[in-house]
């Protein structure tokens, strides 16, 4: 039997999720034994022509070129997996979606007219059908391994859907909300990191996006009293995964503090 072919693509992103593949130091050589890495520019110069069995797409769509390119990638792929928070929710660069991209461009670039960019940073699923989403900024490499193994074994991947808060309890970490009065998105955020931030004595900032079916109104109500500064909770929702619908709504449901500075705001 021929090995399944895998293609890895980068859109607007930091490289961190693809790097998570290269960071499978113990598994990488076995992985390249089990699948054919047909297209992965960060790792290899050789490319094999499509179609591919699995396309792993890192990054969000932010340019006209990317909006075209994703169509071809979808056509070439049997299974398309959106990899990481940029690909599933637009990523940190989707903070532009709450402001005007022209204003941001003016701040950063001397000649914004040279830029080719779209008004919004969008998740892959806004452009093409996505077969599976792996959340995280960055992804959890073991979740990716599980997905690839499941595909090889023709079974459903076993990906947990509970909140970070539960992981925190499981690892016996002290709750930062209760013990320190620090705002923490643990109850609102999908598992995947292993409750890293609370275990390091700080609040979760939502890298893995909203937990499915979370009651974010209740989370907002519970955390509002512990804000360190007016608008903190809104900042927490409107961050790495800020364009994910549930976080977007949660942030919209919180009032903007008076005297809010410009930028990063609606």
């Amino acid at each position, binding site marked *: 039997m021929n090995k399944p072919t895998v293609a890895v693509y980068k859109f607007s992103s930091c490289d961190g999720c693809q790097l998570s593949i290269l960071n499978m130091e113990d598994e990488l050589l076995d992985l390249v034994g089990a699948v054919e890495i047909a297209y992965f520019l960060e790792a290899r110069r050789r490319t094999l022509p499509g179609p591919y069995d699995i396309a792993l797409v890192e990054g969000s769509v932010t340019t006209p070129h990317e909006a075209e390119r994703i169509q071809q990638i979808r056509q070439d792929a049997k299974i398309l997996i959106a990899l990481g928070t940029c690909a599933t929710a637009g990523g940190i660069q989707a903070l532009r979606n709450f402001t005007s*991209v022209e204003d941001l461009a003016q701040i950063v670039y001397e000649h914004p007219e040279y830029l080719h960019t779209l008004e919004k940073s969008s998740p892959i699923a806004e452009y093409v059908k996505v077969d599976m989403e792996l959340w995280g900024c960055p992804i959890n490499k073991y979740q990716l391994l599980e997905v690839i193994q499941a595909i090889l074994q023709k079974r459903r991947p076993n990906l947990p859907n509970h909140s970070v808060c539960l992981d925190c309890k499981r690892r016996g970490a002290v709750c930062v909300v209760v013990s320190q009065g620090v705002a923490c998105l643990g109850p609102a955020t999908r598992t995947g990191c292993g409750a890293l931030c609370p275990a390091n004595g700080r609040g979760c900032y939502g890298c893995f996006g909203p937990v499915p079916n979370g009651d974010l109104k209740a989370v907002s109500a519970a955390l509002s009293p512990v804000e360190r500064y007016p608008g903190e909770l809104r900042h927490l929702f409107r961050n790495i995964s800020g364009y994910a619908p549930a976080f977007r709504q949660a942030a919209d449901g919180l009032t903007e503090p008076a005297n809010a500075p410009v930028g990063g705001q609606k």
Partner: protein
Amino acid sequence: MNQNIEIPALARVEGEGALYVRLKDGAVSEIVLNIYEPPRFFEGFLHGRYFQEVPDITARICGICPVAYQMSSVQALEAAMGVKITPQVRTLRRLLYCAEYIESHALHIYMLQAPDLVGHESAISLAGEAPELVKKALRLKKIGNDLLRTIGGRSVHPVNTCVGGFYRWPDKKVIQALLPDLRWALQASLETVEWAATLNYPQFEQNYEFVACSRPDEYAIYDGAVLSSSGKQINHEDFEKHYLETHVPQSNALHSHSVAGTSYFVGPLARLNLNFAQLRPLAQEAAQKINLQLPLRNPYKGLIARAIELVEVCDVAIEIAEGYQPSGESHVSFKLQAGEGCGVSEAPRGLIYHRYIVDEQGMIRFAKITPPTAQNFAQMEADLWALAPSAIQLPQEEASIAFEHLLRSYDPCISCATHFLKLKVERS
């Protein structure tokens, strides 16, 4: 090579771009390094964020060197707000930076650049011929990542860094449990230097202005004054008076040059050439053992410089881990205060500068970030010009590899920079 060529993809770098080499009457008429890695506007959306969010956000500029972004950010913000960190915090930050160097340099040496020098398209194909070498590279990289994870929680976008210090001291036992691995890594790094010296590098030397952080008392990575091979040394606070960024039409990245309008070169070659005297004895001996002659002016030999730096950072990491004794608060307390401040440090691929203005509520009012690759673009273009006359004499495929290898040797981070560098040569 006598026809237009277009390489749809430069592999084994970070970020997206294209290279156009146009020829007229058999000579090169135009070279354009087109960076079309999409703009992400970090400096724009940092406006209005709370200062303590900055190290989490700037980490997302680059998955390969998030620590560099965090370290320049927190130093700039601490300067802006008058925060004095403790010596213990500085030491642990140096250890975190050592971890990033081990991970990033092992990746670049063995997986991104070395395949060009040994005639392979990737470390994956190299693993077929030299499995032990690739396994060594992976273990080295893993040790860097393990150390990053132990201090920062995870290797990509660590979570433990804050303005004022760290959210939590890592456990002494867990840090010291890594010592056997770090000692192995030091040995592997010494072997890497010797192996690097046996590789056959392209003959290519230029007169560069090298710029790097420098300190009298240590090989500067975490902080320092800004030293140039021209002899000029400036306080890092004056960086923008001497080095400027401009925006050029073919690029989504800003390009830097000195106020005199000349290009300059940041990264491992610059650091090694300017700061060799501050290397610790082990790294110096490793360089002497391979009879290294300085200054190194061959960009491909950045690989040797990285290997020597691996020795240095493993050596430093072992010393810090052995003496690691967490006590007191892991971050200092301070009052919010409006101000402006800047910070520099040495990312694995070169000097990185940040400047922020913070208001009295602790909100960011202005942010400026100058990454290493932006500073090297002008020099990369100049090098492409210097290489082109000989490269275009080569057969098409070899010419492409020659241009690509030169660019890869810079370890460009186009997302801060791999993925897609298109080489298009047009003849008119």
